[in-house]
């Protein structure tokens, strides 16, 4: 007997017949060849979130982002005109990586008036224009106007900075983010500027970690010991049912209840949580800002009074989790090979006004890590065994609908890319 109503079709999954209900293959997560196709079909063509506008507080503020899956590094910089731009991180002279400190592969950030190449001293303005060439007269008819930094398409949504590495892309970011993007607009993301950011190297395909965070079916089991014994027993008996699932184009979301903020019974939580009034679901008391009473329509779509959290999967590798107590969390999954990726988890709170609020955030941030370490280690075990190919088909239940959708979407992108890449070859062969 379900605790929460399901749609008229009888299940969340059967609302979307194209997803099917049969067992699935994870060959798309264990094949090096498939990953090479994903790099071109997905990471070189879709809008990718690379950060937030608060990372660029003043003119000349910049950060670099390594996007190994698209085979590049980019610079994101706020110009003296206040505009945020993105460029490939490459000097136009001999191809040296333009902005880096000590280790060329590591990301960096800072504030500068111009970018100076470490190799021969060529300089570029924060608008990407080439402004200085060492011994310019030694060159042959060099017009500096022809050698500005190679630009990358950049657009922002609600303060989130996205880039698209396909120069021919014509889909605007707003159009790409679709209904979820439009209906999340107005949430006070800009007030939540206190940042705790984690990074981990994970030994699994990027999609498998999204899988882990796109279903809560695992939560009562994998994280059983995180709750008190009584609570843990109850949670695993009841299992997990979402309040709602929604799919919109390549994106998806799950809406869940959240009984822990604050808990009905203080005995349900650990002693430190009782004192600090905080935990996995964040500080129990709402921060004192506007915009939390009247939530945008994308949040709590079931309009359930027990609502606790909504998790949005913005294809391909950006998750946004909005928590009822008034904070948010982002996940990014940056592939580095078919079976490795860099995971970033970032918590955003309204800045603490005193030590007590700060300690509550600290507890939420530390709790997040305790959970994520369990999740991360499970993934390496999954990746290794999937690669054994001892078993090749796996069932997915109705609470795992977002996994079915993610893998289907990723495979469709690859299939579409292969089709479009194949077309010109056929034409030239025929002529």
């Amino acid at each position, binding site marked *: 007997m379900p605790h929460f109503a399901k749609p008229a079709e009888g299940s969340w999954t059967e609302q979307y017949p194209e997803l099917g209900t049969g067992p699935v293959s994870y060959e798309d997560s264990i094949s090096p060849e498939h990953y090479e196709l994903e790099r071109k079909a997905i990471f070189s063509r879709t809008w990718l979130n690379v950060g937030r506008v608060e990372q660029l507080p003043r003119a000349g503020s910049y950060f670099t982002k390594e996007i190994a899956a698209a085979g590049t590094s980019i610079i994101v910089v706020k110009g003296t005109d206040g505009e945020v731009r993105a460029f490939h991180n490459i000097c136009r002279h001999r191809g040296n990586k333009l902005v880096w400190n000590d280790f060329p592969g590591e990301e960096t950030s800072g504030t500068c008036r111009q970018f100076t190449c470490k190799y021969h001293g060529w300089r570029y303005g924060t608008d990407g224009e080439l402004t200085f060439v060492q011994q310019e007269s030694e060159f042959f008819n060099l017009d500096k106007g022809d050698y500005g930094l190679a630009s990358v398409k950049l657009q922002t949504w609600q303060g989130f900075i996205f880039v698209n590495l396909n120069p021919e892309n014509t889909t605007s970011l707003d159009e790409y983010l679709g209904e979820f993007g439009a209906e999340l607009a107005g949430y006070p993301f800009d007030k939540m500027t*206190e940042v705790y950011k984690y990074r981990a190297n994970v030994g699994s395909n990027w999609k498998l970690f999204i899988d882990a965070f796109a279903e809560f079916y695992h939560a009562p089991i994998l994280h059983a010991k995180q709750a008190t014994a009584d609570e843990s027993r109850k949670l695993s008996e009841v299992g997990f049912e979402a309040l709602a699932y929604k799919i919109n184009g390549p994106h998806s979301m799950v809406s869940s209840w959240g009984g822990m903020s604050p808990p009905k019974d203080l005995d349900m939580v650990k002693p430190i949580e009782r004192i600090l009034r905080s935990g996995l679901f964040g500080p129990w008391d709402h921060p004192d800002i506007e915009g939390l009473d009247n939530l945008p329509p994308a949040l709590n779509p079931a309009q359930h009074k027990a609502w606790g959290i909504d998790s949005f999967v913005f294809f391909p590798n950006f998750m946004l989790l909005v928590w009822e107590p008034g904070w948010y969390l982002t996940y990014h999954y940056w592939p580095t090979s078919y079976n490795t990726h860099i995971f970033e988890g970032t918590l955003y709170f309204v800045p603490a006004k005193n030590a007590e609020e700060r300690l509550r955030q600290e507890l939420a941030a530390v709790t997040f890590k305790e959970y994520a370490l369990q999740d991360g280690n499970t993934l390496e075990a999954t990746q290794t065994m999937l690669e054994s190919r001892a078993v090749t088909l796996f069932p997915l239940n109705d609470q795992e609908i977002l996994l079915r959708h993610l893998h289907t979407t990723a495979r469709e992108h690859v299939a579409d890319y292969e089709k479009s890449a194949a077309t010109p070859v056929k034409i030239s062969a025929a002529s």
Partner: protein
Amino acid sequence: MPTLPTEFGELELFADWSLETEAERYAKRLSSTMDELQSFYDTAFPRLEEAIEYLNKFDLNALPPDATRLLWLLYSLVNASFPVEVWRQPRVPDSGAASMDMLIEPAV
């Protein structure tokens, strides 16, 4: 030479838990025995509410050095609460080779 506010003198024994970054706090937790973690927790946890009350009197961005060290020690208590209250071991169970680094945290 006391490093913490005098009201919290008994925590001086654990002043080496006054660590500025999550990375240092987590590393100290992993390199401690359960006895060490338990003894830190048993001393610091009963003073948590009083310490919060003490610290709340200050502007968070203008804490005196001894109050800052007390706050850092409380961050360590938060971290150490997991082995003591939940895991009964310093490491997160089943976390094996997994690791996760905090790259950005608030200045205070």
